[in-house]
């Protein structure tokens, strides 16, 4: 999973997507409303024109109608004119109304009552009709042409709906297009994020492709690229310097220490018996120094690279230089961490325990990344333990903690964990938390440990 997805920070893409959805909706509604207003006016005007034109056409026809028809109409009964192809749901109708307000003639769809009993010219509204009135002849008869309001409403709605659908379609298409543009424009950022994840700063084994971000894909990203490239160059140089220093320091410190030990081993064989104990003490001190140097070199280098891998705790303890203290390891105890760093911490913890009067120490894997260390020494009072824990938490080691606790805390922190001192009625107990995260390749599962299945080394 990408880091930017698990960061919890809002995503630019999703924010832009939501903004686009909101924009599409507002745009669709606004355009729809505007179209509705414009279309309604235009449609009403158009329909009125059509009504007026139809009325004038009917007036021309009726004016030429045989006098008999009108005469018959004058006998108090109006004439109903049915067009040959008229349908029953005809929505256009007309009436001829006499000067006395009597209905003289009408189309089949027109009501049987006159729309207006007094002469009314121009456009008027009835309950269900839009009516246009005009004088037929100098005798005062009026022709009224009408159109149902349902018809007019239906036409208006059709136009408005079509316009709204068109606006919505444009909005949706715009949304899809803009969304794809957003995705396309954000791709360089995702590529940059990928390259940053794979960037092997100071790693001599990384390929040329992994050692550089490559060219910026957008002008706006160029300053970021340049800033990262500059930072990477500084880091690479610093790491190279530190690596060179650590290698030089390792050689410069380890070889003389090995030489001192070899010379002391020879001297112990060649010296008078009275000097053997004294030389042994010198050798013990030299070995303690070896442990400290190894730990310091390990801690220094761990800032450059952590080699996390499965550790057989029993095997690890078997290689520790142990003198004067019995080490018990739970059978099958396995941990996931950097073996060299853990060994460096343990050497100094063992040394600490032995110097504080412990005769035995127990190592237990309380979890895949949790090492519990317990000794049978005098331990520490709750107040002293709290003081030590505070110093470890604040990383203010100077003058507060011994070298063993300091190194163990540094080792835990390098792994992403912490050192915790536990309450214990007897002896001294601590836990080295080796951090969380995915297990290293081929890491064994945590071995459940019982107090009874330990054995001395």
């Amino acid at each position: 999973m990408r880091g930017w997805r698990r960061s919890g920070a809002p995503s630019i893409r999703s924010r832009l997507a939501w903004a686009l959805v909101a924009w599409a909706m507002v745009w669709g509604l606004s355009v729809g409303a505007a179209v509705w207003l414009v279309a309604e006016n235009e449609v009403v005007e158009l329909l009125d024109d059509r009504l007026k034109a139809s009325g004038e056409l009917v007036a021309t026809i009726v004016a030429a109608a045989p006098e008999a028809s009108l005469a018959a109409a004058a006998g108090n009964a109006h004439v109903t004119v049915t067009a040959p192809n008229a349908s029953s749901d005809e929505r256009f109708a007309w009436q001829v109304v006499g000067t006395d307000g009597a209905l003289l003639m009408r189309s089949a769809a027109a009501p049987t009552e006159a729309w207006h009993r007094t002469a009314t010219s121009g456009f008027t509204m009835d309950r269900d009709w839009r009516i246009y009135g005009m004088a037929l002849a100098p005798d005062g008869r009026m022709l009224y042409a009408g159109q149902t309001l349902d018809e007019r409403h239906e036409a208006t709605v059709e136009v408005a709906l079509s316009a709204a659908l068109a606006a919505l379609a444009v909005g949706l298409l715009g949304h899809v297009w803009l969304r794809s543009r957003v995705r396309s424009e954000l791709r360089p950022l995702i590529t940059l994020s990928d390259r940053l994840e794979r960037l092997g700063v100071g790693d001599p084994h990384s390929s040329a492709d992994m050692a550089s971000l490559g060219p910026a894909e957008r002008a706006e990203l160029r300053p970021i690229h340049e800033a990262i490239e500059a930072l990477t160059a500084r880091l690479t140089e610093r790491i190279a310097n530190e690596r060179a220093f650590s290698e030089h320091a390792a050689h410069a410190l380890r070889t003389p220490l090995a030489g001192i030990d070899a010379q002391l081993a020879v001297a112990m064989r060649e010296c008078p018996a009275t000097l053997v104990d004294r030389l042994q003490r010198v050798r013990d001190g030299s070995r303690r120094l070896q442990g400290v140097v190894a730990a310091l070199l390990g801690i220094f280098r761990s800032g450059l690279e952590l080699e996390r891998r499965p550790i057989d705790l029993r095997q690890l303890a078997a290689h520790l230089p142990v003198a004067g203290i019995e080490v018990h390891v739970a059978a099958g105890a396995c941990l996931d961490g950097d073996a060299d760093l853990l060994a460096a911490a343990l050497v100094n913890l063992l040394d600490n325990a032995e110097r504080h009067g412990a005769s035995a120490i127990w190592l237990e894997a309380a979890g895949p990344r949790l090492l519990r260390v317990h000794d049978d020494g005098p331990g520490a009072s709750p107040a002293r333990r709290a003081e030590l824990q505070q110093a470890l938490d604040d990383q203010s080691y100077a003058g507060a903690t011994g070298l063993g606790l300091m190194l163990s805390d540094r080792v835990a922190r390098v792994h992403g964990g912490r050192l915790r001192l536990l309450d214990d009625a007897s002896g001294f107990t601590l836990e080295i938390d080796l951090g969380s995260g995915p297990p290293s390749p081929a890491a064994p599962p945590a071995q459940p440990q019982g107090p009874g299945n330990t054995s001395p080394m």
Partner: protein
Amino acid sequence: MRLLLLEDDATLGSGLRDYLRTEGHRVDWCRTLREVAALRGEPFDALLVDWQLPDGSGLQWLRDHRAAGAVTPALMLTARDRLQERIEGLDAGADDYLVKPFAPEELVARLRAIGRRVNGGNASLRRFGPVSIDLASRSAARDGLRIELTAREWSVLEALVLRAGRIVPKQDLERLVLGFDSELASNALEVHVSALRRKLGRELIETVRGLGYRVEKPA
């Protein structure tokens, strides 16, 4: 065992040379690759090689040595302790890898382990009929009775036992036992072989006329 120690640090080199000698090994100590070149063709039981030397890389020297067909067991002694470096050292031809600082006792134990591996067995105890030889404790017994041997006698016996089944030329045996720069009387080797036969039995060391000596493979 005759060992070639390639180490430029004077304190460590002299300390290891002296310690290994107290353990009964013959040590030729070289501080540079140039000094090693002067020993070309000398037989050694094991090579102790430092990675970084004043005139080149001990690792590259070992790689070249292996490429030339040499099979002598080699142990890297180095301050380089990274996983990748350990892998590189072993891949270059080292049989074992010891990170400085180390205790000389551990170096000796690893040499014993190398000796066992070379001879195809894990046990340090070898039986040749009534004679048993323990390479770890450097002791010999016949019919269960411990036999006292001088340091030189033990060296001759060890060199032959480590090459059991093979003929060891007299000249090689002299150099294995006494080192490159040791003075040796012309019949000194015969004297030691004779003493060994007297103490352990005539049948243990066979003389292959005109070629050298041989100890049969252990039972």
